[in-house]
Every structure is written in C-alpha cells, then in structure tokens.
C-alpha cells in the first residue's frame, strides 16, 4: 500500500472487515439466478441458428407446441418490431431474431415445458427454412469494397452516413503535425497488431426466473449488472410499461461488462405470459460462449516517433475493432483511450466493423486493452532501441494533471506518475531478473464514469442502520457502502446492514459499469448519511433542550456543552417522540469520475521447444484513489490482471468458415486457473479523487488494460522476438521463433 497524498485519517474507510455477504456465500445460502425455483415453474430452452448468416424463410413450431409437457413456444413474431432507429433495436433483435439469423447461435425460438428435457426435445422438432447468406467473420472481409451487408439495419453512428453499411462507428482525433514530427524524429517504430475475440468468462451463466401474473405484472429474478437496466430493456423489447415490471437482483457470479445488457428476460416473460406459469431460463456454458457478448477482436497499426533522449514526439494509430452483428461504440472509445503520454503530435483513427459473430459487449475497460497492447508494445520497443529503462521512458513522457487527453480536454488530478514511481521502487523491480527469465513493463488507462445512483439510509430503533442501494454487489459494494456509512455516522461497520433492493424498493440506479458503483452509489450513501446527521442533530437538540447549532456530531454521538454525549441509539430510541422515523434518501447524477492508471511488471520464461510461457512473478500497481476496502481493491486488480493474462496467452474464439464457434466450452476455451499463476502482487496507489467525498476513483476496469503488452514485452526480451498477435499461445510463439 502506498499513500501518495495526504488525506484524513479514517476510522472505517480503508479497513478490511469481513464482507457482509460472506457468510451466506460461504455456506451456499446466497441465491444466484439459477438457484430460485417457484411453484409450478416451467423450464425453457432455445433454438439457435446453426448458420452464421441466413434469412429466415419460415419457422414451423406446430410440432413443438404439441409435444409432451410443452406449455408455450415463442419466435420473433411474438415480439414487437422496434423501429431500427430505436436505441433498443439492436438489443431487441439480438434477444430474438426477426427474419435474419445474424450469427451462429442467434436465438430463433424458445420453448417452455414442464422440464428442461421436454423443452429441449420440443426445440429439436422446430423446422426452420433458411436462405443462406455470405458469412463475414473478419475485419478485412467486412471492410472489403464488395462486402455484403452483415446487418441490413446497421447505420453508421456518430459520423455522416448515407445508408446501411458494415461500418459501426468511426472516430478521428488529431493535434499537431504528425508528418513533420515523424520527419524530425530520431527514431520511428511502426508495427501492426491483431487480437482475437475473447469472452468475459464469468463463472455464473446468464439466468432468470420470470412470473407474469394474471394482472399483467411481471416479477423478474435475474443476475445482472443492473436490475433497473433489466427492467428498462425488458419493457422496451416487450412494449410493456416499465412500471409493470419488478426486477429483484439475484447474487451475481461475475459480469465484467458482459452483464450490462440482457438476453433472456423478455423471452421468459413472454413465455410466462403465454403459459400463465413462472418460467426459468438459464443458459448453458456453450450458449454463454456462443451467444453472449465477447469483447471485440481487433487489428491495429501504431507508429511512434521519439528523440534520442527519449521524448515521445508523435503517435499515429489506426485501430479496427470487429464488433459483432450489431452496432457498438468500440471504434469510438478505442481512440479516446490513448491517454497516457504527452504526445505533442497525434493522429488516432478508429473504426468498428460489423461481423457475423455474436453481438459484442464491454469487458472491463472496453476497447482499451486492444489499443494498449499495441501502443505499449511499441513504447517498449522504443525503450529497447534507445537502451532506456522502460519505466524511465514512461516517466519522462507520462501525463500529469493539466496535460491534454487525446480529446484535448485536460486531465484532472491523476496518479500515473505515482504508479510508475511505485513500481520502479518496488521490491519486484529492484530485484534481479531470475536466470533464464525476462521482465516486461506495461501500463494502462481507463476513464471511469459516474451516472445515476440512489441510496436510502434507515436508522433502526436500536441505533443500527440499514443502507439500501440499487447497485448489484459485483465487486464488494455492500461492504464498501457500509464502510462509508460507518465513517459518516460514526458507528460500527457491523451495525450497518447493506441491502441491494429491487426496482420497487429503491430509487433508480444506472447499470454498474465504468467502475462506478463505489464512486457514484457511494456518494449517494454519503449524501444520505450527511443529511441524516443533520436530522440527528435536530433530534438531539430536542432531547437535550438546546439549539441545533449547539449540537455537533462526533464519532456516533451528539455532543453539546454541558450535557453528557448522546449516543445514536439514545436518539433513535426516541425517534417517535422527536419527529418520527429517521430515514433519508439521496439520489444524484454523479460527475467527476476520476480516471485511473495502472502499471504492471511481469517476470516470465519461454520454453523455446514448446512455446509455453510461464509467469514467475507479477506485480500490478493502480491508482485507486482512496481504497475504501483495500482487499476488494486488490481483488479487482488481481482479477483484471488474471483475465488479461488469459487474453494474452490462451483465450480466443475459434470459428469455422461458417461462423460456428469450435471451442465453446471451458475445456477448449481455456481461462487461467490458480495453478497456472503465481500470486499477483498489488501496490495500491491512493491519489484521492477530489470530486468524491472520500477520494474514490473506481478500480474495476483498468487492471485488465496493461497485461497483454506487459507479457508481450517480457516475451520480446526473453526471445528477441516481438509478438504482435493475441493470444500468444504456444503454437504462435513457436511459429514466431521459427520465422527468420
């Protein structure tokens, strides 16, 4: 732990209490999406497209409808057709195909039956007549002049467009004169890179149970990164009023961006409405991989110029993201994520192209890892060419407060330099590289975002508190909220019960993305507590017979000169006689999310006979702002790092020529397991975010940005071979080593 700026000393914030949800999760009592069962419940199963791209001529479900146990069957015809300009159109057609199968695995129909086996048997009888269409799987295929349309409804977003095309988005950011800067540079390094589709790999498959009552009111239990998002999207896709839907959040077994959208709920809701029974719909692992959003694949070209003393003078990049079968913002965000160095001359171009592959989704810091892999690899090559220490080169060029981002807007207070310095001074970096191993360095950036959150704090008659929020507890938000409330109210963190409430029991809260829950929802909790303290002072003034201004709140007690301190419990016990229940709700649209930087260091060996890479030691630094619960912060850093290691070394979607995923299981799509890795050491940098009352930045995303380049840079130093294609799997490494 490194604290780099002075901040107040806290009693609770920054401590490591046992998580409030730990007991239920350890004993298996916590209920995830698939754990809920209702009386009379049906089980649903999907029919999915076996073709990568096809027009659906007809679907005959008549046999299925008469099969044993079958209670309802749905196809795209059972859902309203949204206008293609509707912001929810893409999600709607991804949930259930309408006339076109856009990728292998696209949902075409679903059956609800008494058992899952009966539903699956009925699905097998559904007859579909297809007109097969050309399948576009790669960026080059999608960009070809004569490329057929992947999706006839795709209109390019954010730039001028004159009709449907395969271009999702495009973005250009420029400053200075790159051509002149390259001409004047002492050294110019240019490389091309590519990365594969990778999945977020959450352990819990998507699942839900939906019960639509005779009054048309739907109860949904689902695992997601935001149950208000589930409500909004389900309502939009079904054409229902959001107020007719109540969503109760199940525990979530990982999301990482992949559960910021929906797949199941409208289907289960329609099946429940048609059958009059609750319907449970849970994906298999194969379905998760074939039909839920991977992160985009990418290609890129990066050219960086430098002076002989290590000043980075110009960067020119082109990033191409393959975003799957519907529009996505990856092409916009990728260019904006180039934010770590003071390039006076810059030209960044990025595009997103559609392919007949699953609709992509965010994966922690969406689009940034692909860009950072390319840029940080070239930065490392420059350090090697100039014989400079890779951290010194980065320190010489690192952005600080006031330096422009790629968009031109100045950086607020940031901690990139502090991360670099902490790693430089770490035991890991100061230790000799082990014999036969090599060391790599890489860095990463992510914006973080704010958005809307709500919180209600109820004080109970015994002086305890209930903190109610609408952010699903994905990364420890229950205990983080409790810690901030404990700090504000001055009571024990275990006197606080943090609750994640359903959509009818707490104010609207945006989906948990952009590392925003502890930042934004935490701010709502703090605001509610501060308002509550004002009310407590007023109640204490009544009890003590003094003016409110004479009462201060100190460590959980009301203090007034000439009186004994009045503990919280003494005030709550008299709530009725002093004005009624003590409860406050706060809501906000939070601005001021603090950008986060990370710098990683990896020691590894490469077996030049097998191509196997073995990670020996790995250290991750990250500017978290104030770490509310340091163990959770470290866990996010470790989790992001391990996922990045998988992205770097093993993980990739393998498609056949027709777009069928050939490795749709965790046996063949190999994510890292504990035995593959050493302990990931962490150094938490705390440069408080001035826009948050406790200095929170958010930590969930940046950790996945640096690992790919960090590992590639170590491999380059181990083998004198620059790997430019992910994953850097043994066959690719052997091929690269064999290339003269």
């Amino acid at each position, binding site marked *: 732990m490194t604290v780099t700026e002075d901040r107040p000393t806290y009693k609770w914030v920054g401590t490591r209490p046992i998580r409030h949800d730990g007991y239920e999760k350890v004993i298996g009592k916590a209920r995830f999406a698939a754990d809920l069962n209702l009386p009379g419940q049906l089980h649903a199963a999907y029919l999915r497209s076996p073709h990568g791209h096809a027009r659906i001529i007809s679907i005959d479900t008549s046999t299925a409808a008469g099969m044993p146990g079958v209670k309802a069957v749905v196809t795209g015809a059972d859902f309203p057709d949204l206008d293609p300009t509707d912001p929810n159109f893409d999600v709607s057609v991804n949930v259930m195909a309408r006339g076109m199968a856009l990728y292998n695995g696209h949902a075409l129909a679903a059956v609800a039956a008494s058992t899952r086996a009966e539903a699956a048997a009925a699905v097998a009888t559904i007859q579909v007549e297809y007109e097969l269409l050309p399948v576009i799987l790669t960026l080059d295929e999608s960009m070809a002049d004569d490329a057929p349309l992947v999706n006839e409804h795709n209109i390019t977003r954010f730039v001028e467009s004159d009709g449907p095309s395969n271009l999702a988005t495009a973005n*250009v950011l420029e400053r200075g004169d790159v051509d002149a800067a390259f001409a004047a540079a002492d050294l110019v390094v240019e490389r091309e890179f590519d990365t594969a589709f990778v999945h977020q790999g959450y352990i819990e498959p998507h699942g839900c149970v939906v019960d639509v009552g005779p009054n048309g009111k739907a109860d949904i239990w689902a695992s997601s990164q935001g149950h208000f998002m589930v409500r909004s999207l389900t309502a939009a896709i079904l054409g229902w009023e959001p107020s007719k839907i109540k969503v109760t959040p199940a525990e979530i077994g990982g999301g990482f961006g992949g559960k910021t959208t929906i797949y199941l709920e409208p289907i289960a809701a329609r099946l429940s409405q048609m059958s009059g029974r609750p319907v449970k719909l849970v994906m298999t692992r194969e379905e998760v991989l074939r039909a839920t959003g991977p992160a985009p694949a990418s290609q890129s070209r990066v050219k960086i110029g430098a002076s002989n003393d290590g000043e980075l003078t110009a960067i020119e990049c082109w990033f191409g993201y393959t975003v799957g079968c519907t529009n996505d*913002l990856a092409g916009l*965000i990728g260019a904006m994520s180039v934010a770590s160095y003071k390039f006076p001359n810059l030209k960044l171009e990025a595009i997103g192209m559609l392919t007949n592959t699953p609709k992509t989704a965010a994966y922690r810091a969406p689009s940034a890892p692909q860009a950072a892999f390319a840029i940080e690899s070239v930065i490392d090559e420059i350090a090697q060419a100039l014989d400079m220490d890779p951290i010194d080169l980065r320190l010489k060029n690192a952005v600080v407060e006031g330096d422009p981002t790629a*968009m031109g807007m100045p950086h607020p207070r940031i901690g990139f330099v502090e991360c670099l310095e902490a790693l430089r001074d770490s035991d890991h970096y100061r230790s000799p590289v082990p014999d036969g191993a090599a060391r790599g360095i890489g860095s990463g950036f992510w914006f973080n975002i704010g958005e809307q959150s709500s919180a209600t704090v109820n004080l109970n008659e015994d002086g305890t508190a209930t903190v109610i929020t609408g952010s699903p507890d994905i990364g420890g938000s229950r205990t983080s909220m409790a810690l901030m409330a404990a700090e504000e109210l001055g009571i024990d963190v275990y006197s606080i019960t943090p609750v994640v409430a359903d959509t009818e029991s707490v104010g609207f809260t945006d989906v948990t993305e952009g590392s925003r829950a502890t930042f934004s929802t935490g701010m709502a909790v703090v605001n509610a507590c501060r308002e509550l303290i004002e009310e407590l002072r007023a109640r204490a003034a009544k009890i003590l017979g003094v003016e409110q201004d004479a009462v201060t709140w100190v460590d959980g007690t009301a203090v007034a000169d000439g009186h004994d301190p009045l503990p919280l419990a003494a005030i709550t016990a008299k709530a009725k006689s002093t004005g009624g229940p003590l409860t406050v709700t706060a809501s906000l649209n939070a601005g001021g999310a603090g950008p986060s930087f990370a710098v990683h260091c990896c020691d590894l060996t490469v077996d030049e006979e097998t191509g196997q890479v073995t990670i020996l030691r790995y250290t991750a630094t990250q500017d978290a702002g104030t770490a509310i619960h340091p163990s959770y912060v470290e866990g996010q850093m470790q989790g992001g790092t391990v996922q990045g290691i998988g992205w770097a070394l093993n993980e990739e979607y393998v498609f056949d020529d027709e777009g069928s995923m050939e490795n749709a299981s965790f046996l063949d799509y190999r994510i890292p397991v504990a035995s593959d890795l050493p302990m990931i050491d962490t150094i938490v940098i705390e440069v408080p975010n001035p826009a948050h009352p406790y200095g929170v930045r958010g930590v969930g995303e940046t950790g996945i940005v640096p690992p790919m380049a960090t590992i590639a840079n170590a491999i380059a130093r181990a083998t004198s071979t620059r790997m430019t294609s992910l994953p850097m799997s043994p066959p690719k490494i052997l091929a690269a080593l064999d290339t003269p």
Partner: protein
Amino acid sequence: MPRVHLMSDHRRFTNGEAIVESEGATVGAVIAELEQRYPGLGEALTHGASAGVNGVIHSEPQYLAVDPDTDIYFVAPLTGG
C-alpha cells in the same frame, strides 16, 4: 464566450474549424446558438456526443451551466464494463 472543441466529424459543419466560440449560459444554449450558425451541427451534438466540461464528461449535458470562459469538449459517448 464559451469555447467549443469539436471532434473531427463535427468539423464538416464548421468548414474545418476545430474550435468555435458560442454564446450561451448552458451547454444546450451553446448548442442552439451553434445550430443557428452551422445548420446540422446542433443535431449532431445533441444526439450522439457527450461533453467534457471542467474536467468532467457528461452524457446528457444540455442543462449544464457554463461560464463565458468555459471550454466545452464534445467527445464520443462513453460506456464501461
């Protein structure tokens, strides 16, 4: 007057100008004034762009107050994981 920093695609409305000045007490008023001078730009900024103001990116900035010396950076919309 607030200074408005435009992304590359928006510059097709301003004859290539990357930075333009515009009057208005809110981002929405600034956009409306720009629409008067550069037809089409206001629509592009209203539907599809976020705005960075005083170091903070806002996804729906139209009612955000700005001062005469404010720099407004229109940027692509952000999402997160």
